[in-house]
């Protein structure tokens, strides 16, 4: 289990970017369908409880729009 925080205002969207969806081994990302201030449609997590905390999405997000904190205080590796 892990806690995932998304920053939709920083996200450049599933349509144009979508890297989080590519690298997530659990295929948890999808489009939120709602446009942000910059005109992008950010991603959202379909089933947050399925996240394993691998942090691939966080490390691969070009816009620092995702934070994944592993439970038990594990750190990014």
């Amino acid at each position, binding site marked *: 289990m892990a806690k995932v925080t998304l*920053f939709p205002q920083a996200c*450049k969207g599933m349509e144009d*970017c979508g*890297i989080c969806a590519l690298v997530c081994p659990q295929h948890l990302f999808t489009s939120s369908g709602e446009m942000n201030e*910059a005109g992008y449609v950010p991603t959202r997590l379909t089933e947050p409880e399925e996240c394993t905390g691998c942090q691939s999405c966080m*490390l691969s997000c*070009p816009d*620092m729009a995702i934070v994944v904190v592993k439970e038990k205080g594990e750190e*990014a590796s």
Partner: protein
Amino acid sequence: MSLAEHPLRKYTRPHVKKTTTCPGCGNGIVAQAILWAIDELNREEGLSMDDFVFVSGIGCSAWIPSPLFAADTLHTTHGRPIAFATGVKLGLPRQKVLVASGDGDLAAIGGNHLIHAARRNIDLTVVMVNNGIYGMTGGQTAPTTPRGLNTITSPYGTMEPEFNVAAMVAAAGAPYVARWTTYHPRQLKRAIKKGIQKQGFSFIEAISQCPVQYGRVSKLGRATAILEHFRDHSLKLAKAREMSEEELAGKITVGEFCDRQAPELASQWSELRARLGKEQG
């Protein structure tokens, strides 16, 4: 949710709220890899952003540290960041000096500085973002563009082979050279961290995606498609060394090209000054 909550935000200038890159650009992945490496060094060795000077040239990737990173940043002319960084390092030998720039900047117009910095073995960490194209100017051929690709300035296909920059820098004498892609953010971070720790010239080539320009001319399209290409065509150096040239066509060799010790320039200057100072009493 506030942006300030991202754990790397403590290393960025508070007033810089967002990146200036196109959607899906690899620059942000490289920026994170640099900052995560520093974050680890912060926890392990107590290094802070005040211990760094970041130098960049011209091109999209030159904006990785400038203005984002909350540290001394020097954004310079096209091709010359290594030359500027050399002066900074010799003037401030205790600072960590990191150059982040692109393949056009470091391998085309600035190629000679790259070769000579590697030969001199001055303690710089150079992170070269290689997207195989001139992105900022609109998709022209770079020295790193794969042969045969139709670009804006090679409308009939590039006739020149691509530049194996990491191998060239290793051959020029750099003690640490590695290449990874933006599909390998963890490895990239580890290589950058190792490069910062290495006393000497270290060169980390980050093969990266430019969905807008490279994606267009390569017909790979989106960032995710280019990343999938990286995933499917990357090959560890150790394995690549056992393969023939034909087998290696179209592959991206990744891994450490070298990791060795050699006398470093700035520290040799410190030693010389100490010796001459003693002689003079």
